């Protein structure tokens, strides 16, 4: 009964989403106040209905209702409660429902927080969001109904994919979707502006907090996925350039470009059509990410099922949404005029360079990810570029971008004289050079050619980010949250470059077959394989080893790598044993028993690896702080004096 209720609620939500789209867009076009008055109640109703649907599915999971096919396929009576809830988004149907629910949530937030915006604009924004929601709900109801019954009900379920039975991965999809879906708000703002034929600096100010918030969620989502891959897949790396990882990274790169170009549009009224295009692109890449993962066109560790019908449906939806938005762009964008130019070393220029590097990087990832598909379409031999392509090209784009950040932070709007700042920039660079080279050559020893460059650059960005805020504090000026947020996020970037450079150069790695009592030596460190025992968990059995880490012969910590056999799905999973120190991780994973009591193990020492995720956390924190800046909360907006500078280009 409850699942049918959920299904029914989902169908009602679909109808309401259609109403929201129609009355929002058509109502604003006709200037009909009564039509537009339908929109907010439709948003609220849709939120309640989609919440009912997701609640019904969660109820089925928590109460072991194996007569629901999706529950039977992704849960089991031995599965702990926490994972029964997380199992909801463990596969295709539930993931879509989660997507729809998060979209309903973002839309509700827009409905509540857009009361001060002009009615027609707000209606259009919610109308576009309603259209996107309609597409997703239709997809769910038509091809991927999570409430489908399985009668007669099996006695027990097939269990959740063991790979997904992990706390970080349980919250990874919701975070990622908060980011993906959050970009739909920026997209809707862009479409509304194009429909309205008007884009001014106030528009950029409205759009910024939504975009930054979505970007912060996406940062956390990506970092969680990377962290999970590190300790769960047992390969010991933090990024594999896997198609699904790339699918989340592309919107992040473009989203990063977008939040910077929005800043220029807001402050100086420049890059208007470019900002619109980025807003469309960021969400398009989010949709494309969903398409790549869910249609199974690219196979990877993440794809659960290949289904051409679903693939075609999503593709059709992509063509309507993205194609429609780009057609609108081709029609409306030429009418937008950007005012006065700027000099080549003004802040605008640095933001432009930033955008070029980020978008080229996203294009590079895009080509690499889709290479197999493109080769297939052109009837060339199957081609997969693999990580050497990314590993070689990505730093070439990111290192100059880092240098631009360190310098550009001191540039002023409009006028290019770096003037007084020049001394600071050089001072910061000199300090970073001394520090960085000391760390590299005295601390670790020379690594790869790019290592000293990366380390110096990372430190330079951190110092450079701090100069202005520290100066402001010294002069007893207030420090708005926007600036604190920006500083923290840029420090995050510096930490990220520093950490990746270090981890890529100084990781010590050994694969060996080893028996109990034996020791594996790596420089000053040694791993002693003490024992291996049988263990039993709620829904798995397996073995756990005890490995003592010694430094200069003195035991410093004990690692417990495991290998688990999940009974129901009959699969084997590695749980790495990891001890984290502030400056490095000690890592060991059991890979397989090779006979005679010997196990092949992968042992690693990874310096600064945790800093990679710390960096993502800093970026996200910076984003959240910037979003909560007072000026976004200020009531005025619609009544704010229209910013002059010939920004409002009316389209006819």
């Amino acid at each position, binding site marked *: 009964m409850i699942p049918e209720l959920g299904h029914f609620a989902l169908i009602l939500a679909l109808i309401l989403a259609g109403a929201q789209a129609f009355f929002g867009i058509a109502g604003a076009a006709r200037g009909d106040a009564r039509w537009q008055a339908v929109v907010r109640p439709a948003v609220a109703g849709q939120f309640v209905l989609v919440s009912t649907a997701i609640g019904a599915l969660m109820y089925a999971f928590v109460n072991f209702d194996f007569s629901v*096919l999706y529950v*039977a*396929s992704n849960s089991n009576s031995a599965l702990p409660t926490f994972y029964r809830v997380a199992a909801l988004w463990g596969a295709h149907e539930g993931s879509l429902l989660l997507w729809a629910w998060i979209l309903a949530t973002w839309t509700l937030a827009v409905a509540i927080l857009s009361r001060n915006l002009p009615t027609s604009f707000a209606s259009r924004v919610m109308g576009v969001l309603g259209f996107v929601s309609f597409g997703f709900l239709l997809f769910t109801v038509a091809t991927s109904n999570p409430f489908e019954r*399985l009668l007669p009900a*099996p006695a027990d379920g*097939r269990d959740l994919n063991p790979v997904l039975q992990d706390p970080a991965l349980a919250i990874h999809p919701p975070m990622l979707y908060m980011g993906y879906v959050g970009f739909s708000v920026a997209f809707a703002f862009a479409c509304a502006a194009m429909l309205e034929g008007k884009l001014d600096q106030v528009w950029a100010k409205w759009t910024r907090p939504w975009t930054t918030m979505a970007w912060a969620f996406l940062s956390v989502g990506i970092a969680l996925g990377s962290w999970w891959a590190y300790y769960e897949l047992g390969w010991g790396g933090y990024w594999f350039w896997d198609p699904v990882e790339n699918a989340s990274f592309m919107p992040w790169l473009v989203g990063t470009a977008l939040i910077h170009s929005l800043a220029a549009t807001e402050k100086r009224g420049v890059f208007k*059509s470019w900002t619109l*295009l980025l807003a*469309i*692109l960021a969400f*398009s890449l989010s949709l494309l990410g969903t*398409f790549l993962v869910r*249609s*199974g*066109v*690219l196979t990877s560790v993440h794809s659960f*099922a*290949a289904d*051409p019908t679903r*693939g*075609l449906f999503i*593709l059709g939806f*992509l*063509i309507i949404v*993205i*194609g429609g938005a*780009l*057609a609108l*762009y*081709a029609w409306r*964008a*030429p009418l937008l005029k950007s005012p006065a130019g700027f000099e080549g070393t003004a802040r605008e220029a640095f933001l432009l360079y930033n955008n070029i590097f980020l978008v080229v990087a996203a294009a590079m990832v895009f080509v690499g990810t*889709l290479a197999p*598909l*493109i080769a*297939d*379409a052109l009837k060339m031999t199957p081609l997969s570029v693999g990580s050497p392509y990314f590993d070689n090209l990505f730093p070439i784009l990111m290192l100059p971008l880092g240098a631009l950040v360190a310098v550009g932070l001191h540039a002023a709007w409009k006028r290019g004289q770096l003037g007084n700042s020049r001394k600071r920039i050089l001072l910061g660079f000199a300090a970073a050079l001394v520090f960085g080279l000391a760390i590299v050559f005295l601390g670790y020893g020379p690594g790869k050619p790019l290592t000293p460059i990366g380390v110096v650059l990372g430190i330079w960005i951190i110092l450079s980010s701090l100069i202005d805020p520290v100066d402001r504090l010294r002069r007893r000026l207030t420090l708005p949250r926007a600036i604190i947020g920006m500083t923290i996020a840029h420090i995050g970037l510096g930490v990220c470059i520093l950490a990746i450079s270090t981890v890529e150069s100084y990781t010590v790695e050994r694969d060996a077959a080893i028996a109990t009592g034996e020791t594996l030596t790596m420089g000053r460190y040694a791993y002693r394989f003490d024992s291996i025992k049988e263990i039993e968990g709620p829904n798995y059995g397996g073995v756990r080893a005890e490995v003592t880490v010694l430094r200069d012969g003195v035991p410093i910590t004990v690692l417990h790598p495991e290998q688990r056999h999940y009974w*129901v799905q*009959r699969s084997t999973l590695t749980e790495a044993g990891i001890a984290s120190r502030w400056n490095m991780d000690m890592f060991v994973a059991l890979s397989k028993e090779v006979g005679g009591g010997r196990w092949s193990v992968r042992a690693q020492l990874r310096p600064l690896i945790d800093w990679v995720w710390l960096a993502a956390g800093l970026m996200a924190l910076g984003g959240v702080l910037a979003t909560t800046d007072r000026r976004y909360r200020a009531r005025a907006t619609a009544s704010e004096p229209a910013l002059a500078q010939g920004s409002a280009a009316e389209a006819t």
Partner: protein
Amino acid sequence: MSRFLIPAAVFLALAGVLYVGVVHSPNKSTMQSVLLGKPVPAFSLPVLGNPGTMLTNSQLAGRPWVLNVWGTWCPACRDEHEALLAISQQNALPLVGLVWKDEDNAAIDWLKQLGNPYSVVAADRDGRVAIDFGVYGAPETFFIDSDGRVQYRHVGPMTQEVWNREFLSRIPKGALP
């Protein structure tokens, strides 16, 4: 105007590529089987319900046959079961079941309850033979010709349509009973 059309044009080209990718993906799953055109992997497995007897690949040689990989734990196998029953009525090809990583009793109960479309079912309890066949998820169905070579692999539930198009058509002319 023209430069603002570039994004839409690029997107259209991309949509074309994605379309080819989606439409090709069923082919891809057959192409990915390295076994195509190769001799069927050698196996010797106990017969379901009669564990004393073994079924081997050599016993099946000499005429085309079909191997269907299934399990009682697999919802999609339940979906295709009715189609398999209908297909078995037509007696076109011997339908050999490979019950994959399953309890014998559960599998026997399932066949009793839902009907048995198979000429014979081999029990692959530890899943080793399925690995040799490159199976990555049940159900999967293979066509093996009279020389004992794998000619076709179908991933996902069997339907009458797939059967007519991809399996019946592969029987050499004159070999039909």
